[in-house]
């Protein structure tokens, strides 16, 4: 079937173009999933946010993810310019920040369970949103790990760095999702 689809496409299109378009389509479809989850907060608990929500932790997680986006971007720039040392350095830095973020979410869950368990309205929203997002972060860390091990011996160069670009794009997408989740869970107040 794949061959039939490929034959039906205009012959001048290269695989890179189709890969990139497909990735964008996937990201848009995943964004609609997050949009539905985020909007559910305003239906379930409207603008109510418990006082026990840790603002410091929320801000810390946000800073961590934003900085990780910069390191991911730098890894992509390094791969594009054939800078192998910096590619490896920034991919590892991004993964470490992702793991730290997951640890922060784990701590958030531990604390949240005491104050607003999943049986409460706000708890339902918090555990669902952070849970789904953390799963995305985890998949991003795995993807970056795969890219690191495949690219550490110079598999990606200036002419062939699409896998790095795709993994980094996924990481930025996860960051964009958090940009909306952060105010939704932590900052909005009645």
């Amino acid at each position: 079937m794949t061959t039939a689809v490929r034959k039906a496409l205009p012959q001048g299109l290269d695989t890179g173009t189709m890969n990139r378009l497909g990735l964008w389509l996937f990201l848009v479809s995943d964004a609609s999933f997050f949009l539905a989850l985020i909007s559910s907060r305003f239906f379930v608990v409207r603008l109510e946010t418990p006082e026990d929500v840790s603002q410091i932790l929320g801000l810390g997680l946000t800073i961590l993810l934003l900085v990780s986006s910069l390191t991911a971007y730098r890894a992509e720039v390094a791969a594009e310019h054939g800078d192998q040392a910096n590619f490896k350095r920034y991919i590892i830095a991004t993964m470490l920040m992702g793991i730290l973020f997951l640890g922060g979410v784990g701590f958030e869950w531990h604390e949240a369970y005491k104050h607003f368990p999943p049986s409460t309205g706000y708890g339902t929203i918090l555990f669902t949103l952070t849970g789904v997002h953390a799963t995305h972060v985890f998949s991003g860390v795995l993807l970056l790990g795969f890219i690191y091990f495949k690219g550490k011996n110079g598999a990606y160069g200036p002419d062939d760095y699409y896998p790095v670009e795709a993994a980094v794009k996924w990481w930025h997408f996860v960051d964009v999702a958090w940009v909306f989740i952060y105010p939704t869970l932590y900052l909005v107040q009645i």
Partner: protein
Amino acid sequence: MAAETKSKALMRGNYVIVVLAVLTAIEFAIAVAMTGNLSATLLGIVALIKAALIIDYFMHFKQLWTFVAEVWYEMLDADPDDAPDDTRNAA
């Protein structure tokens, strides 16, 4: 991004992260200073600006239009006689 020099690309990343940090500080200040619908609306606007920065500068959103245009023009230029027989006779 291909034609861009490395130092220029790195510098652009630095600028973007500084603006994102400032916007996050503004976001926090809004949450401290006000509540209710106005606060929620302003927070939504700031989040949209932050997302736009990441999507445009880090995810190279502009390239999407190049790809869409490329696919579109290729489809317009495609010769129907080049299509494989199995797709034309599918119905």
